[in-house]
C-alpha cells in the first residue's frame, strides 16, 4: 500500500516532466534530448537559492519558470528553427534535431559540471506525513500536489482556450493546422518554450526529494521519452497513465528487488511497448 502511494506520488511528478517533453515533441516535433538538462537546471536553481537564502523551492519554481520559458524560446528560434527550415522531410528533421539537442545537452552538462561538479541535495519539508495510517515524506506529497496543480492548469489551458486548441491541432497535423490558418511556427515556438518551462518546474519539484548531479539529466530524458512513447506521443491522458505506471513499477522494483534496477525496469517496459504496441497505449496506429 505504501509502495502504491509512493509510486503514484513519484509517477505524478514524472507526469509533469513528461508533459514538457510531450509539448516539445508532440507539437514542435523536436525530439529534445536536452530536456533532462533543463530539469537539472531547475533543480540546481532550487538548490542554490534554498541553500543561500532558505527560500522555498516552490517560490524558486515560480521564478525559474519564466526564465526557462524565455530560454527555451530563444533556443527554438535561434537553434532549432533553422533546422526546421532546412529539413526536407520529417525524418531528416528528427535526426537533425536529435543531434543538435544532443549537442546542447552536452554543452549544458559541461557548463553545469564546471559550475557545480558534485551531487547536490537539500532538506526541504523532509518530515513525515500520514495518509491512511502510513507515513510518507511530506516533500513528495507537496511536490505531487504542485505537479497536479500545474498539470491541471495546463490541461485547462489546452482544452478551454483558443491558443490551447490551436496547439492541440498542431500536434495532430501540422499541415492541416496551417491550412486552417494556425500559425504553426508561432505555435511550435510557444509549445517548445512552454514545454521547457514545465520541465524545469518539474525539476525544481523533484529536487525536493531526490539527490541529483549535473550529469543525471539524460536518465530523466530517457524516462520522459519512455513515458510519452508508452502513452502515445501527443496524448496527455496517455502520458499521465504511463507516468503513473512507471512511478509504480520503479518504486515496486526499488523496494522489493533492488534500487539499482530501476532503470533496467523502465527499459524493460519500454521494450515491451516497442514490441507490442509501438503507438503507445492511447496513440493512433500509424497509417
Amino acid at each position, binding site marked *: 500500500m505504501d509502495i502504491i502511494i509512493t509510486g503514484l506520488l513519484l509517477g505524478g511528478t514524472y507526469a509533469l516532466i513528461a508533459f514538457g517533453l510531450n509539448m516539445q515533441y508532440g507539437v514542435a516535433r523536436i*525530439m529534445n*534530448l536536452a530536456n533532462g538538462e533543463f530539469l537539472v537546471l531547475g533543480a540546481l536553481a532550487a538548490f542554490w537559492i534554498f541553500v543561500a537564502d532558505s527560500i522555498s523551492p516552490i517560490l524558486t519554481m515560480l521564478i525559474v519558470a519564466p526564465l526557462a520559458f524565455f530560454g527555451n524560446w530563444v533556443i527554438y528560434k535561434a537553434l532549432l528553427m*533553422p*533546422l526546421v527550415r532546412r529539413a526536407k522531410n520529417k*525524418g*531528416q528533421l*528528427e*535526426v*537533425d534535431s*536529435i*543531434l*543538435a539537442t*544532443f*549537442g*546542447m*545537452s*552536452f*554543452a*549544458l*552538462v*559541461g*557548463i553545469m*559540471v*564546471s559550475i557545480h*561538479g558534485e551531487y547536490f541535495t537539500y532538506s526541504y519539508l523532509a518530515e513525515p506525513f500520514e495518509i491512511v495510517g502510513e507515513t510518507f515524506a511530506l516533500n513528495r506529497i507537496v511536490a505531487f500536489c504542485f505537479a497536479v496543480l500545474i498539470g491541471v492548469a495546463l490541461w485547462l489551458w489546452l482544452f478551454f482556450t483558443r491558443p490551447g486548441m490551436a496547439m492541440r491541432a498542431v500536434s495532430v497535423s501540422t499541415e492541416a493546422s496551417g491550412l486552417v490558418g494556425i500559425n504553426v511556427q508561432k505555435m511550435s515556438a510557444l509549445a517548445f518554450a512552454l514545454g521547457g518551462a514545465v520541465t524545469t518546474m518539474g525539476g525544481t519539484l523533484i529536487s525536493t526529494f531526490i539527490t541529483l548531479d549535473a550529469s543525471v539529466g*539524460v*536518465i530523466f530524458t*530517457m524516462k520522459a*521519452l519512455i513515458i510519452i*512513447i508508452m502513452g502515445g506521443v501527443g496524448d496527455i491522458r496517455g502520458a499521465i497513465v504511463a507516468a503513473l505506471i512507471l512511478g509504480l513499477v520503479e518504486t515496486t522494483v526499488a523496494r522489493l528487488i*533492488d534500487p*539499482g*534496477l530501476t*532503470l*533496467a525496469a523502465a*527499459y524493460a517496459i*519500454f*521494450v515491451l511497448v*516497442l*514490441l507490442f504496441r*509501438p503507438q503507445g497505449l492511447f496513440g493512433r496506429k500509424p497509417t
Partner: protein
Amino acid sequence: MSHENEFKSLVWGAVLLVLAACVPLVANGYWMSIALTIAMFTVLATSWSLFSGPTHYISLATAAFFGVGGYLVGTGMSDYNMDFWTMVAIAPVVGAVLAFLIGIATLRLSGVYFVIFTLGLAEMIRTLVSWIQNNFTGSRGLYVLTDLTEADIYIYLVILAAVVYLVGWWVNRSRLGFALRIIGNDETVARHVGINTATSKVILFTFSGFVAALVGALIAPRYTYIEPNGVFSPEISFIVVIMALLGGTGRLWGPIVGVIPFALLQEYINANYSNYSTLVMGIAFLVIVYFLPKGVVGRIEQLLARRGRSTW
C-alpha cells in the same frame, strides 16, 4: 566505379595498410598509445557508418556492444579462467546476437525510436551488469592479464580495420548496399521496389554489433582492469558518432578523416582541460549539425563539384 578506379583504390588501400602497419616501428610509447586509440576508433567509426551512414538510423549502441566485448573478456579470464583468445572468439558472437535481437525489435519502427532505444541501452546494460556483479559475482572489477603489448593490439586492430574496409567495399558494390542507400533516401519507395527493409537493416546492424564487440574484446588487455563504468561508458557511443559524422559517412574512408583529428583533440583536451571534455563534445555535435552535415569529406566534395571538377 570503373575497373580502373577500383584497382586504384585497392592499391591505395594496400599502401595505407602497409604504412599503418609500420607505425609501431617508429612510434614511442606515447604516440603508440595514441595510434592505438586511433585504430580502435577507426574500426568502430567505420563499422558504425556502414549501417548508420546509408540508413540515417543513428545508432548510439556502440558502447553497449563494446562493453559486452570487454566485459566478456574480463569476466571470462577473471572469473572463469578462460583463455584470452577464446573469449575474443566468443565476444563478437554475443555482440552479434544482441544486435540481431535489438535490430528485429526496433528496426521495424521509425528511426527516432531506434535512436532513443540505443541511447539508454549502454546505460541499462551497465546497471544490469553492476547489479549482477554486486549481488552474485562479488567483485567490482575484472583483471585482464596478458603478454600483449600495445603494438600487438594495434596490429590486430589494423587487420580488423582492413577487414571492415573490405566488407564495406563489398557491401557498397552489392545489392545490399544499394538497398540500404534506397532505404536511407525513402523507405516507402524501398518497400515498393521489393526491398525487405527490415532484413537489410538487421544484417548491417548485426555486423556493426559483431565488430564493436570484437573491438571491445581485443582492446581489453590495454586497460588491464575492466570495470562496468568504464567499458559501458556512453561517451564511447557519442565519440564514435561524432567522429563518423565529422569525417562524413558518404565515403568508406570518410570516418577515418574524422577519427584522427578528433582523437588528437580529445588527447589534448583530456591532458589539459579535462573538465571541459563534455563541453567539447557538445560543441562538436553542434558544429556538425549546423556547418558540416555531410562531414568534412562531404563538404569538400560539394565544394569541388561546384567548381566543376568531377568527383570520384
